[in-house]
């Protein structure tokens, strides 16, 4: 790891800084609370380093512009919040289908609809999974600190390039607006892609054998990009075996690289009886509880925090459920990811939801009380 220097910054700023460090040079967006600081940072910094910042006419256009710029060979990012995330869904699906890398940041706010624009919530977890129509693979990272906002954005940019897969960074208002110290490396954390020079003359942008590099437009490889089902060269097809194969292939690439995609972290007792499974800002309250219960009082308690919520960390939950009696799932929504936890606990542990949806964070006391009930 290159040398680091500590910097005090906001979660949204960290996201922008991480993106730039990972090589993002194009940002298109539309103003929306509470994600605006990402755009403002990009508007200030990208012109200084030869990059492009453009404020588009709406959320749909900014998603489209990001995809267009990616096809031109730039690393791209856009940021939004609930209502804007809803509007981005169609073109997000296009990017998944056409396998165009890009990173979409959604700083969640209280919904549905306009909701409470400045109140935190975790209500978009299922939308992040299934917001765009049709069966599709998706990767969603969920930072729980400013530090994670920085590094998960870097991971998202690099992985998105490697897999030719759009990635969502699902922040929440708490992490987006909080200030913390982050260790910023002096060097770049950008993973270069394989060079475009070695492209065969019979270039197949959708090679069945794996993930072909995306050769940007303008270099003499004349392929087609479409949201229709397509063959290896990108041309539309409605042929049932080819359609099925294409859909399998875009899912398989996530399975193949699962170890790089699915990030979780366990702290606490080696043989816990009660575990908390949390993501995003809720991890902070849960960590405070587990630190006290385990580190101070040696109670059989643990915390599995999910940096990746999609693809769902099924194996990790299965393993955890075999160890514990109870899994508590605190979420700032009416219970979204808890359904997945229950599904992969497979009856081995009791799964208890703990929900709050009044626009306030789940407090350590709330979690502590629930943990105490099951010990």
């Amino acid at each position, binding site marked *: 790891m290159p040398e680091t220097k500590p910097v005090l910054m906001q979660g949204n700023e960290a996201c922008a800084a991480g993106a730039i460090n990972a090589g993002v040079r194009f940002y298109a967006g539309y103003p929306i609370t509470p994600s605006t600081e990402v755009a403002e940072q990009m508007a200030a910094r990208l012109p200084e380093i*030869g990059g492009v910042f453009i404020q588009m006419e709406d959320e749909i256009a900014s998603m489209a512009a990001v995809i267009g710029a990616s096809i*031109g060979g*730039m690393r791209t990012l856009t940021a939004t919040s609930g209502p804007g995330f809803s509007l981005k869904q169609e073109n997000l699906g*296009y990017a998944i289908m056409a396998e165009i890398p890009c990173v979409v940041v959604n700083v969640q706010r209280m919904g549905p609809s306009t909701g409470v624009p400045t109140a935190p919530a975790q209500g978009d977890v299922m939308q992040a999974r299934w917001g765009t129509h049709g069966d599709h693979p998706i990767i969603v990272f969920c930072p729980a600190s400013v530090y994670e906002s920085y590094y998960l954005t870097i991971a998202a940019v690099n992985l998105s390039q490697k897999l030719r897969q759009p990635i969502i960074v699902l922040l929440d208002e708490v992490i987006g607006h909080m200030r913390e110290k982050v260790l910023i490396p002096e060097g770049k954390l950008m993973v270069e892609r394989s060079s475009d020079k070695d492209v065969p003359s019979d270039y197949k942008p959708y090679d069945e054998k794996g993930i072909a590099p995306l050769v940007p437009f*303008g*270099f003499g490889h004349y392929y087609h990009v479409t949201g229709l089902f397509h063959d290896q060269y990108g*041309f539309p097809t409605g042929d049932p075996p080819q359609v099925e194969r294409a859909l399998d292939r875009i899912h398989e690439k996530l399975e193949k690289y699962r170890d790089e995609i699915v990030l979780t972290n366990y702290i606490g007792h080696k043989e816990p009886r009660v575990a908390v499974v949390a993501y995003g800002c809720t991890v902070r309250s849960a960590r405070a509880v587990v630190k006290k219960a385990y580190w101070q009082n040696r109670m059989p308690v643990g915390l599995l925090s999910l940096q990746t919520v999609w693809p769902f960390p099924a194996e990790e939950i299965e393993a955890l459920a075999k160890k514990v009696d109870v899994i508590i799932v605190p979420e700032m929504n009416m219970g979204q990811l808890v359904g997945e936890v229950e599904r992969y606990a497979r009856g081995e542990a009791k799964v208890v939801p703990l929900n709050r949806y009044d626009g306030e964070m789940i407090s350590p006391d709330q979690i502590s009380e629930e943990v105490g009930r099951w010990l």
Partner: protein
Amino acid sequence: MEQLTQDFLRTKKLPHIWCPGCGNGIVTAALVRAIERTGFDQKDVVIVSGIGCSSRAAGYLNFNTLHTTHGRALAFATGLKMARPELKLFVIMGDGDCSAIGGNHFIHSARRNIDLNAIVVNNHIYGMTGGQHSPLTPTGKKATTAPGGTLEPAFDLLKLARGAGATFGAKGNAAQPRQLEQLIIRAANHKGFSVVEALSPCPIAYGRRNKLGGAVDMLREMKEKSISVERAANMDEAELEDRTINGVLFSDDAPEYAEAYYRSIGKDIG
């Protein structure tokens, strides 16, 4: 008519999906010939399209081609142009694609005066979905969603474009493909947002319902109604009633967005 440059066509992808008598093939051929005449390097040319019958043209053209989502072609193109200002972008859209669902992107591309060449294939109808009225369907004309004739007035697309800031606007039609080709060349050589509105017959989803005859009749009428900008200049309103004015309707000078942006960050892309 001379042969089209085979280099610019994906001949293996032909025959195309269009109905017999459709004007899309004529407009596409005019575009290909125009690109050839500009002398642009094949690798610098990008065809972007939206969703609809005419937008399928992208798949038949041997360039880097980008078939996007409904109405959003200009927004995709804006991102690509900003990332790669040296590329020459032609954006094919249908009338509904461009002026209804894509209306916002259309006026804002015009406002920025970004160097994109919008080729709007206007057949006055949503063809692919079977004949619904669009914002360019003339008042009174029938559509599946306006069985008694639409009550809505139509946009004047080129006035809309100019009002929003576009710096080049031209109108041609499939009945006069040579002229259309010339107009596309002029648009391609113009720096800024250029719009070429190409009237095109859709005998299947529009002509039949409105009793306009077959493709040949529609083309004949198109030609008869058309009058050049030069001739129209000396005619009064009564004489111009029910005529379509063809040619370059406006060509203005204003800063182009991609160039202005890059200059502002100290890069000359001139």
